[in-house]
């Protein structure tokens, strides 16, 4: 398979059925940068003058995000929260430190580290046990709090997270399955600093799938932690993502249509409400052949039967 974009048709390293395209290394990197630049512009995330704090975990999404923002020339520092999950946290911390020292430092970007155990006296596993709360929910609360606090206290204009298209589509599926419509407002790729004490939050990777971001990390030699967080095993988010990936494989573009369609609906004003009965009374009238209600002159049943009577059998 060759690159569908570059004139020399180099060997492709990835095919993207949802875009009906295949890219070589160079064109794929350009494609990813363009998708991020488009998200930043269309959702009014930040400007080149803004100071950005990237929430990094050592995983592919957050390190790729930091890498892309630095490559695009933004002023982006990062915050790593060490959750105290044994060897997993040690390894992810090493990956983040390595990236900060070998790549980010050359761009003048710095890494801030917060160690949960130093402030709370225990890692999140122990805290979750003490609090009788699921570990992922304890972790989420701690990370959101620490990222927001660092962004506000250290005067960053905006906080960026590595949430991607799969994260947002899976979260939307979960919210819709349980009709948690109070959470839907928070699914916008840009959340304003609505009140004093809240940092503005943005998700610049929202146009890119998890697979595209992992591919970007491999192509650009970003050394991230491949191992899954041991606490995430069996999580609902993973189940939703697996279901969506099966749908995506059968019908490319499903995740994008689901999440982007939702965002588009959110931006459009609600049309004037009309009840089903009112709509039927406005649009339906008797079929001229049988008298049953239809939107056309002749109903589809009568049309079908008329056609069947005149058609010759095969």
């Amino acid at each position, binding site marked *: *398979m060759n690159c569908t974009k570059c004139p020399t048709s180099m060997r492709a390293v*990835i*095919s993207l059925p949802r875009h009906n395209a295949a890219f070589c290394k160079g064109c794929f990197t350009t494609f990813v940068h363009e998708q991020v630049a488009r998200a930043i512009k269309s959702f009014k995330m930040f400007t080149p003058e803004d100071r950005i704090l990237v929430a990094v975990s050592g995983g592919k999404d957050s390190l790729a995000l930091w890498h892309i923002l630095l490559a695009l020339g933004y002023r982006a520092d990062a915050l790593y929260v060490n959750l105290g999950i044994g060897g997993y946290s040690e390894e992810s911390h090493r990956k983040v430190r390595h990236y900060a020292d070998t790549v980010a430092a050359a761009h003048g970007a710095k890494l801030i580290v917060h160690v949960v155990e130093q402030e709370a006296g225990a890692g999140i596993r122990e805290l979750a046990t003490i609090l009788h709360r699921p570990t992922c929910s304890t972790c989420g609360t701690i990370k959101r709090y620490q990222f927001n606090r660092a962004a506000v206290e250290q005067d960053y204009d905006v906080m960026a997270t590595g949430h991607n298209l799969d994260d947002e589509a899976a979260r939307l599926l979960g919210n819709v399955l349980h009709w948690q419509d109070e959470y839907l407002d928070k699914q916008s790729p840009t959340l304003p600093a609505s009140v004093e004490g809240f940092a503005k939050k943005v998700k610049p990777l929202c146009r890119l799938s*998890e697979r595209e971001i992992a591919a970007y990390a491999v192509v650009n030699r970003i050394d991230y932690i*491949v191992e899954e967080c041991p606490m*995430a095993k069996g999580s609902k*988010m*993973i189940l939703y993502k697996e279901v969506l*990936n099966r749908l995506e*494989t059968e019908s490319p573009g499903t995740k994008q249509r689901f999440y982007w369609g939702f965002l588009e609906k959110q931006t459009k004003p609600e049309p004037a409400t009309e009840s089903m009965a009112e709509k039927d009374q406005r649009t339906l009238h008797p079929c001229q052949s049988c008298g049953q209600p239809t939107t056309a002159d002749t109903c589809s049943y009568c049309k079908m039967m008329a056609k069947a009577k005149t058609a010759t059998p095969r």
Partner: protein
Amino acid sequence: MLVHLSHPHRQVEIKGPKRTKELLRELNLVIEAHLVIRGDELVTEDEMLADADQIEIRPVISGGSV
């Protein structure tokens, strides 16, 4: 070919030559959730993989709280 898999870490020997998509199908893995890396280069679904190749199939799904 020697194929390295994650979650959990393991290695399996698969008879080549074989296209990437056939390898994934044989291992019952969804393309959308995995990358296939030969040596240290990404390969597409139609790439032919040989017996002598070192292959890594890397999962891309991460979970937990979002």
